[in-house]
């Protein structure tokens, strides 16, 4: 069934898609967002770890391979708001060095833009959706920018208790920037510090898309079609322009949505899957894939977690899932001998009972029951996010297996290289030093398989079709009215939680799209 042509169809109603929808709908464009999951409302966000799984991925699975499979399901989203409906809202930014790894270290590739190109959009996003933090304190490590619109969040003993340890090993910690309200902001209430952020904040204290950009977009007339799964991007016969998308609606009926512009904002694994599945005789390797790079350079952050038991009650049920303290002290790429890559160090976060149990996965039976009682009072943790370098072999490709709509499943192959393994180990060793210096009674590293966090890459940005899939705004090098948004356009990963950068890059891309609209639709 064909639908009336619109100006732009956006595939995915998460963080990046909602920014584009807001900017373009407010510019008077007719916007349709197609989202494969349900249309969640704030009232659906039940305070329960068990119920919170409803907003985690439930569509066609991405098959996982490689030595370090990307365990994405806990972080992925399903439904309107995407992963940003339940994200932790840690808002560190990338630093200038992230944009210049090739220039500074002769490794991998530079971004086609600099920190200074993105910095104004960090500030703009902070003003628009609200960020709490202490920008001045961060500026010991980064160029100066605007102050955050809200003061830092409250801290709790589960965060404060680490400061002595960090100080002892020479790591200054400052208030962490978060996309949460420390005070009332734009009519949204202040946070209550009950730690349910990760299953969705129903009071509006956390800046999820529903109450920020997507809410604005809807007010401006954007239409959201939930339970609508896009399977192909369509092109004209010459293959020079995209004409819309094919999708299956809530009743599993095939639909066509024509549009002047198509934006893929469907997450790092799904964007390449869609481009690859949209191959035509003019684009036999998939759309925007003359480079052969669609699906490649998938990246993750490895997380080095250190747990510790203290003699005192650290009130670990209080706070947010976002962190209270952060440091860029080991962000320079060569901070650790024998390892390469940035580290972003964090401390202080609320824990739920699942976290308590997962902090000692080896325990079961009566030993686990005893441990849970102690952990409920005395457990606290710190985490260092580590950068993985982009690697061609880490990739998404199509398989011969099909989903319920006949679309090939995606396979995500991922293995950490020696740089990543060395950096993860260095961060774990440092974490133990911090814990001991903080006075922990017991301390241990979360060993086992190396975690994967924050999926990025797959449709990276660059200067030309020779080295990338899209330009710095997300526009395809090959098809001018095909755009891509979200972490899939990151050419390198940095070590900072990515969503603030996703918002900033999307704001930049959306403004550029709006300003160039006439060239896109001719």
């Amino acid at each position, binding site marked *: 069934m064909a639908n009336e042509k619109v100006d732009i169809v956006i595939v995915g109603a998460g963080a990046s898609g909602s920014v584009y929808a807001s900017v373009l709908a407010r510019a008077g464009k007719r916007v349709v967002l197609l989202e494969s999951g349900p249309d969640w409302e704030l009232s659906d966000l039940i305070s329960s770890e068990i119920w919170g799984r409803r907003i985690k991925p439930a569509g066609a699975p991405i098959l996982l391979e490689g030595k370090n499979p990307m365990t994405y399901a806990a972080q992925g989203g399903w439904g309107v708001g995407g992963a940003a409906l339940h994200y932790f809202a840690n808002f560190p930014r990338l630093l200038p060095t992230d944009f210049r790894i090739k220039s500074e270290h002769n490794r991998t590739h530079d971004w086609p833009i600099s920190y200074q190109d993105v910095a104004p959009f960090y500030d703009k996003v902070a003003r628009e959706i609200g960020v709490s933090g202490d920008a001045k304190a961060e500026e010991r490590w980064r160029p100066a920018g605007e102050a955050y619109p809200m003061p830092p969040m409250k801290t709790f003993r589960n965060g404060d208790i680490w400061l002595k340890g960090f100080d002892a090993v020479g790591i200054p910690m400052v208030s962490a920037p978060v996309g949460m309200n420390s005070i009332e902001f734009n009519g949204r209430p202040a946070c209550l510090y009950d730690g349910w952020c990760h299953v969705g904040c129903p009071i509006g204290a956390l800046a999820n898309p529903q109450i920020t950009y997507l809410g604005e977009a809807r007010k401006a007339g954007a239409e959201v079609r939930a339970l609508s799964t896009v399977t192909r991007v369509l092109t004209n016969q010459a293959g020079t322009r995209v004409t819309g998308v094919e999708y299956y609606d809530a009743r599993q009926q095939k639909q066509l949505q024509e549009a002047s512009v198509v934006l893929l904002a469907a997450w790092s694994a799904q964007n390449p899957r869609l481009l690859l599945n949209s191959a035509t005789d003019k684009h036999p390797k998939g759309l925007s894939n003359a480079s052969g790079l669609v699906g490649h350079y998938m990246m993750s952050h490895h997380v080095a977690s250190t747990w510790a038991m203290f003699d005192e009650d650290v009130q670990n049920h209080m706070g947010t899932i976002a962190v209270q303290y952060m440091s860029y002290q080991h962000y320079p790429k060569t901070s650790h001998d024998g390892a390469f890559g940035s580290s972003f160090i964090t401390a202080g976060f609320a824990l739920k009972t*699942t976290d308590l149990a997962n902090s000692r996965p080896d325990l079961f039976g009566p030993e686990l029951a005893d441990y849970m009682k102690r952990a409920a009072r005395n457990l606290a943790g710190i985490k260092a996010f580590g950068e993985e370098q982009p690697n061609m072999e880490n990739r998404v490709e199509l398989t011969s297996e099909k989903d319920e709509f006949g679309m090939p499943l995606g396979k995500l192959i991922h293995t950490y290289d020696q740089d990543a393994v060395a950096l993860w180990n260095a961060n774990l060793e440092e974490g133990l030093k911090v814990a001991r210096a903080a006075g922990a009674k017991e301390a241990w590293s979360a060993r086992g398989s190396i975690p994967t966090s924050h999926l990025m890459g797959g449709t990276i940005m660059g200067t030309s079709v020779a080295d990338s899939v899209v330009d710095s705004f997300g526009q395809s090098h090959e098809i001018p009215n095909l755009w891509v948004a979200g972490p899939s356009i990151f050419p390198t990963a940095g070590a900072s939680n990515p969503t603030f950068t996703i918002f900033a890059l999307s704001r930049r891309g959306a403004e550029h799209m709006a300003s160039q609209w006439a060239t896109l639709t001719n």
Partner: protein
Amino acid sequence: MANIGRRGFVKGATLGALAITVGGAEIIISAGEARARGVPFRLLDAHQGETLEALGETLVPQAREAGIAHFIDQQLSVPPQEALLQARIFNFRPPFAEFYRAAIAAVDAGSRKIFGRDFAQLSAADQRDFVDRMRQNKIEGWTGRPGATVYAVLRADAVDVVYGTMEGYEALGIPYMPHIPPEKRW
């Protein structure tokens, strides 16, 4: 709540996880209450239920009474996109029942090989010994997903029913502090 069509997806919180049919009427009760009432399983057979209870109790004390088998059974009976099982987070492909059936079969096969009896018939000490070996992938001839994975998933399910509920928080003395409390205190 609204049934919005595709795959029978139901968004509301009152249908789904713990809606149990009793005497022809669907009521909302906890898994522990379902067990106490002797509510029949929907998908599991009696042996599978007994084995899940034995595994759950070995992994997390009180999981049997908290209704781990009824919880898993009920979750397996709803469409996978509504299921609240950790299998979803482990990126298992639906139907999730295949994992549980295969896991129970692998556990029993291993148990018979080592102890000559099904897992549910073992003493508590032997059950513990078996689970410890399974956790470390040290059961010879094991088939299917690794023992460590079975351990992790079933342990997570047991943690859910014992510690993931409002009652579980209360038992540990942790304030639950919900914005929107779950139905039947889940």
